[in-house]
């Protein structure tokens, strides 16, 4: 391998790492606030990419129907639980919140699918359209069992991924698609190293978004509420934070991140309905490096995963994913060595 190749692979790895960084932040955010390991994260990113692809081919994205269907189910779940508790007065507000609110991006998406809408608007709407997905899924699937053990939540989360990928196939079909680059042009790095605008855009977005993430968490009341819920749910409730609401906020933010990832990678990778799973899993490797709690370590982990993947694909395209997952081995060994005396929680599934 020459230095040229190494440099190209390194830059490629950086771009991958940027994606895993954003995904890792979303995963850690959801896990720390709700204890849910949100496996369907990658699916949402894939749906955003496929939505954009539908816009570009002049079709009305099937995502509208998906969001609409989920909103109907969520309204039904919410209304049932409210009427079971006898709180009929809150039903209209619930219908507005769970039915009307998700309908807004659906309406925008329908308008954006009309001919002559600029590409930039379509990109924005693609991201916007998947934002309700995670909160809706959370309301339907996770909120009723919010106090279950991490293990039960994880099993549910994995089942949810298979549910979503089945729905993805139904709604989007088996064809893969690739979208137009968001940024054109190349930057010449030194002598003869062209770096495409798309890669620069990916890395820059990762830097800007993680910076924003940091600011929100450190400087705003909302960010502090999220952190408080992550540290101790009961304690957060005692000071007036509603865990269910912060959880929805976390899901919303994560969904937004997933949407951004989707439109960022759609021009460089051919996306299928189930491409998200592997992206999500690699972000998990990054998140596990960060112990599922530390954002800076997750960021470092994401870069490591990205670079390892890009070099691995140079040596063996077919086995690159195996090589990336085997990164877990030294990480787990180190973690197991460091936490040898930790007392684990009880995990009860059947109670």
């Amino acid at each position: 391998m020459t230095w040229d190749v190494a440099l190209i692979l390194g830059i490629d790895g950086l771009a991958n790492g940027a994606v895993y960084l954003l995904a890792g932040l979303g995963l850690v955010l959801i896990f720390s606030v709700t204890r849910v390991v949100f496996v369907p994260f990658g699916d949402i990113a894939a749906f955003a990419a496929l939505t954009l692809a539908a816009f570009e081919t002049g079709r009305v994205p099937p995502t509208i129907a998906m969001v609409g269907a989920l909103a109907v189910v969520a309204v039904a779940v919410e209304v049932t639980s409210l009427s079971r508790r006898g709180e009929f007065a809150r039903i209209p507000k619930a219908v507005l919140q769970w039915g009307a609110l998700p309908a807004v991006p659906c309406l925008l998406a329908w308008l954006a699918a009309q001919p002559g809408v600029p590409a930039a608007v379509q990109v924005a709407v693609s991201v916007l359209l998947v934002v309700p997905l995670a909160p809706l899924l959370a309301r339907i699937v996770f909120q009723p069992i919010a106090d279950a053990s991490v293990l039960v939540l994880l099993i549910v989360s994995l089942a949810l991924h298979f549910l979503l990928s089945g729905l993805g196939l139904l709604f989007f079909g088996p064809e893969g698609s690739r979208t137009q680059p968001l940024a054109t042009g190349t930057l010449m790095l030194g002598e003869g190293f062209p770096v495409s605008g798309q890669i620069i855009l990916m890395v820059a977005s990762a830097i800007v978004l993680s910076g924003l993430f940091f600011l929100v968490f450190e400087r705003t009341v909302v960010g502090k509420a999220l952190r408080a819920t992550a540290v101790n749910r009961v304690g957060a409730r005692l000071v007036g934070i509603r865990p269910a609401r912060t959880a929805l906020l976390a899901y919303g933010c994560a969904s937004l991140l997933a949407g951004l990832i989707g439109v960022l990678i759609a021009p460089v990778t051919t996306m299928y309905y189930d491409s998200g799973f592997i992206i999500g899993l690699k972000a998990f490797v990054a998140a596990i490096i960060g112990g599922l709690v530390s954002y800076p370590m997750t960021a470092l982990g994401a870069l490591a995963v990205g670079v390892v993947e890009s070099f691995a694909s140079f040596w063996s395209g077919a086995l690159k994913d195996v090589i990336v997952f085997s990164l877990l081995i030294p990480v787990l060994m180190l973690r197991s060595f460091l936490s040898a005396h930790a007392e684990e929680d009880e995990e009860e599934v059947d109670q």
Partner: protein
Amino acid sequence: MSAARRPRTPQLVIGGLALAIALAPLLLGSFSVSLLNDIGIGSLVALGLVLLTGVGGATSFGQAAFVGIAAYATAWLTTTQGLSPWLGLLFALLLTGVSALLIGMLTLRLGGHFLPLSTIAWGLSIAMLFGNVEALGRHNGLSNVPALTLGSWSLADPRAIYYLIWVIVGLAFLFSHNLLRSRPGRAIRSLRGGATLLASVGADAYRVRLSLFVTAALFAAFAGWLYAHMNRFVSPSPFDVRASIEYLLMAVAGGLGQLVGALVGAAVVLMLKNGLQDVLPMLTKNAGQLEAVAFAALFILLLHFARGGLMGFVRRWAPGLLAPAVPDAAPSAVPPLPRRQLPTPGTPILSVQGAVKRFGGLVAVNEVSFDVNAGEIVGLIGPNGAGKSTMFNLLTCTAAMTAGRVQFLGRDITGLPQREVARLGLARTFQHVKLRPQMSLLDNVALGAHARTRAGLLKAGLGLDAAEERQIFQEAQRQLARIGLADRAFELAGSLPLGTQRILEIARALAADPVLLVLDEPAAGLRRKEKQALGELLRKLRDEGVTILIVEHDMDFVMKLVDRLVVMNFGAKLVEGAPAAVRADARVQAAYLGGTA
């Protein structure tokens, strides 16, 4: 209810089930026989998951990968090397066992979510490896796997291999049933009580979990071997994460709390899958996708509304059917378990020298030294926050010391793991009671004898531990009688009031035949009568030669009981001496009442 009128329903049900399984191939068409073969193979994998997840509290999203390792191992050995499928079985078991051991060693020390998450990663990786290795036929897999033969009898026909599959399933269930009722089984059933509980009886939670993990993988290996020789073909896709989830669905649908749940779950899931494959194409042209969606939705609904699975309902409607059998008559006497040589009264057995524990800047225990002599009851007291509980953790080696030494029976135990100290004869109880609520009183106490006995997982599963088991239960029964609960031996520990649970913990500690019994606030939450009974019990134990160190809040209780007191305040030792002297000490009064010394 008299012994003679005890219903024999469980035996009847099992007998009827066995008969039905034996007769099924004579009555059913070949399609149904093939389905039953699949159910048998599925239930083997699900049984491993019931043990691992339902009983042991750990889970694996990569169980299908173990099935795959075994299936590919035997397929490779029999097709490319041309060896016998029976050698293939050995090779499959070996390869799967070693893989599980390595993966387990890597992940089982990690608590909580790390294990299941990493199982997703290796579950995916192994399935991908199958699809990319030239010798394993890449995505096309390996075909022409030979059928099994028994002598000259070929098991190529589904009706022929049927009996082999169900004999293996039957043996696997028998093995698991034996295992759960044995010494290693009690440790497995206590895994969810936490590592400290197991360490307190001298067991290593990590090793227990590792052996359980390997056992579950070996069940999957049998399934994989049968799969390869039944279908005569292996390819990567039946061993991916999706398949693992389906096995987990079987275990959850049947009911993780019961072994039978594995069989019920495999039957329900596979029959449902078959039904859906028949019905869905009539409704839609996207049948395949809808099937996946329906299964995932079903799984989520199960975890929302019926986490106990189908057997959970059976347990609720007909509790007698699944209740553990109560022996009809008292077992005949067997030689007791060997006992330890107790040190002569008056010799020092525990000696704490200059113990220091810092948590960051806070000094919780500062330069504390004291001795405990054989045959006495020593009380460790002090006001709230004096560092008593930390001291307790230091001398039982539950927590590591910052500085200082502890000697037990003349041996330096500083820095030893807690379970080693327990094995030396230092038994403890817990301030927050750690009993297994779903186990009987007798089983809970029998757990205490873990370190005095030897039977391993294999011996227990094969039912070769009967003699030792009788000794253990005789000992457990004796300890229950000692604390006055002999007639409630078969009740569940969770049904006892808190005070009685504390006393039951003492019986468990006594079953370890301890030299030194260390009790952490045993009188907390007890009523006056119960306290009196506890005091009498402890005095009786002292008279029998057991040395007792008691950490306690209740001054009245301690003053009447102990021979000597060690008083702590603000992390340091304040006074040591006889109860009367301590009571009169001005410094102690000041510490407790806040006056000036």
